[in-house]
């Protein structure tokens, strides 16, 4: 098992290097040559060269990339063109807000989706099933930022229950979390239902019933544990989407997280901030995916057996 974790960690390295390179290259194209705009129109060629070196923009793309990775290993993501602040510091300052939002989102989504999905599957084709499936379909079809606007309209402006934005106290996180969580909850409900329907057909549930296991335990113990396996896979993939979704929610609700940082930095063409934030976020996603894979192994002994081999 430890060997497997180690192997997976080693396999992360090329992926992370690849991600960093991809982002680095894209942002390099996006940046054009920022030196001129930073230096000002009347700078001499010598001044420009000096600035270029100071900004770390001399040399080919590959050279700069290698230098960037070297600095990254030291925890240095460069300084922002605009605020002149250390990008790593700014990122780490924003990260807790995004993580808070993501965590609450996922807890709420899972808490809603799994019971709903199970009920829908167990009472297939009942009114409850149809209702939850229609709701899930709507949830999946709604653009999250629009949902956010509707939530503001209704719960903030009309009812005054929650603030329209900012990050003051628990009440301010509720609407953003619903905004990001709705599509995730919808997706998870659908996945849970179909996975559960698959499992409910399995012979081993009949074995359990024949043993005298109560219907409740047949579902909650025997079926759910098996149904969880595909749900967990989805969950890993969705963490990336939650971070993506929070970009929009953070914009709508002025939530000071990583998403807003990126959007603002792009507006200001602040390349080091964008690159740094994207690289770090991707690393986060990759590590979460690894963790999900490990959880997977604990739920499904067959997979665990593959790992230990």
């Amino acid at each position, binding site marked *: 098992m430890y060997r497997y974790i180690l192997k997976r960690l080693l396999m992360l390295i090329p992926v992370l290097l*690849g991600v960093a390179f991809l*982002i680095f290259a*894209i*942002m390099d194209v996006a940046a054009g040559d920022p030196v001129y705009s930073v230096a000002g129109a009347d700078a001499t060629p010598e001044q420009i060269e000096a600035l270029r070196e100071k900004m770390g923009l001399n040399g080919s793309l590959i050279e700069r990339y290698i230098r960037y990775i070297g600095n990254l290993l030291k925890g240095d993501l460069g300084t922002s063109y605009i605020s002149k602040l250390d990008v790593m510091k700014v990122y780490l300052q924003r990260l807790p807000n995004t993580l808070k939002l993501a965590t609450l989102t996922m807890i709420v989504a899972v808490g809603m989706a799994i019971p709903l999905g199970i009920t829908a599957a167990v009472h297939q084709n009942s009114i409850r099933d149809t209702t939850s499936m229609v709701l899930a379909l709507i949830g999946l079809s709604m653009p999250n*930022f629009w949902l956010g606007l509707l939530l503001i309209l209704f719960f903030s*402006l009309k009812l005054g229950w929650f603030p329209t934005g900012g990050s003051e106290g628990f009440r301010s996180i509720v609407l953003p979390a619903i905004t990001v969580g709705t599509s995730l909850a919808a997706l998870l409900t659908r996945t849970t239902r179909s996975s559960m329907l698959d499992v409910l057909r399995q012979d081993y549930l009949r074995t359990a019933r024949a043993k005298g296991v109560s219907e409740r335990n047949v579902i909650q113990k025997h079926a759910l544990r098996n149904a969880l396996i595909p749900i967990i896979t989805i969950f890993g993939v969705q963490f*990336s989407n939650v971070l993506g979704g929070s*970009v929009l929610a953070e914009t709508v609700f002025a939530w000071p997280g990583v998403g807003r940082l990126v959007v603002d930095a*792009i507006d200001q063409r602040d390349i080091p901030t964008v690159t740094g934030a994207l690289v770090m*976020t991707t690393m986060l996603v990759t590590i979460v995916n690894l963790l999900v894979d490990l959880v997977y192994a604990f739920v499904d002994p067959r997979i665990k057996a593959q790992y230990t081999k």
Partner: protein
Amino acid sequence: MEINQTNRNQQRATKLYKKRSALEDVWRQLRRNKGAIIGLILIVVIILVAILSPILLDYDKDVIGQHIKQRLKPPSADHWFGTDELGRDIFSRVIYGARYSLAVGVVAVFVALAIGITLGAAAGYIGGKFENVVMRICDIFSSIPSVLMAIAVVSALGKSTFNLMLAVGIASTAPFIRVARAAVLVVHDEEYVEAARAIGMPDWKIIWVHILPNCLSQIIVQATLRVGSAIIAAAQLSFLGLGVPAPAPEWGSMLSAGRQYIRDYSYMTLFPGLAIMLTVLSLNMLGDGIRDALDPKLKR
């Protein structure tokens, strides 16, 4: 040799016949599914609206023409959805906006399809190192949140409708690579593929003639569902100001404008969002229907 040829023709004939009856079967299943039919009708209506809107509306006058005297009027008999901050009729703009959203969604998915299927099918068929590299690239792509990925691509290429399509397309490539590869792996060792290889058919032709048609159903399902998410992704980028440039009536950018006026003119945020939802909903209903119709597990 001649006998061989007749045999192959016969085989081809039976295969064609089978394919047609399979399609009919899918259609029969689909017709039974109320949701899928509602979705199908809705999406056909939306497509018709998108096609006909330039005939029904004068772009310069009705869609982007500013009428300052008429600004910020709530919905009424004259302006069903009200007017925006520049006095433009929101109903006309929502109608015309269907062109943008559908075009972006469809083109983006075609971009993703083209890249994804080529890479995925090649990876599955060739295997080895090539497959490894493609799948790692796929990992890389899927670990960058697709919204962020699209944002980065748009900012690199510059804001334009075409770049938006490209960005959304690139950001949704990974799932198609996976689907195509998985499908190819399933049929790769089937006897008819081995037989084709044995008679010396070139690889690209085997992929094209024998392998892809067999994973077509999965790809259709994926594509239908992905057009929906591409429309949402495009609207998201436009909402962030990175999509279709103003004054074009893209639904996402209309919402972005409406957001400034949400306190007093909430109808501005209502209708473009409804339009997005309805379009995506109809695509999802249709996609779900096709998937269920194709899923042999549900046919009992």
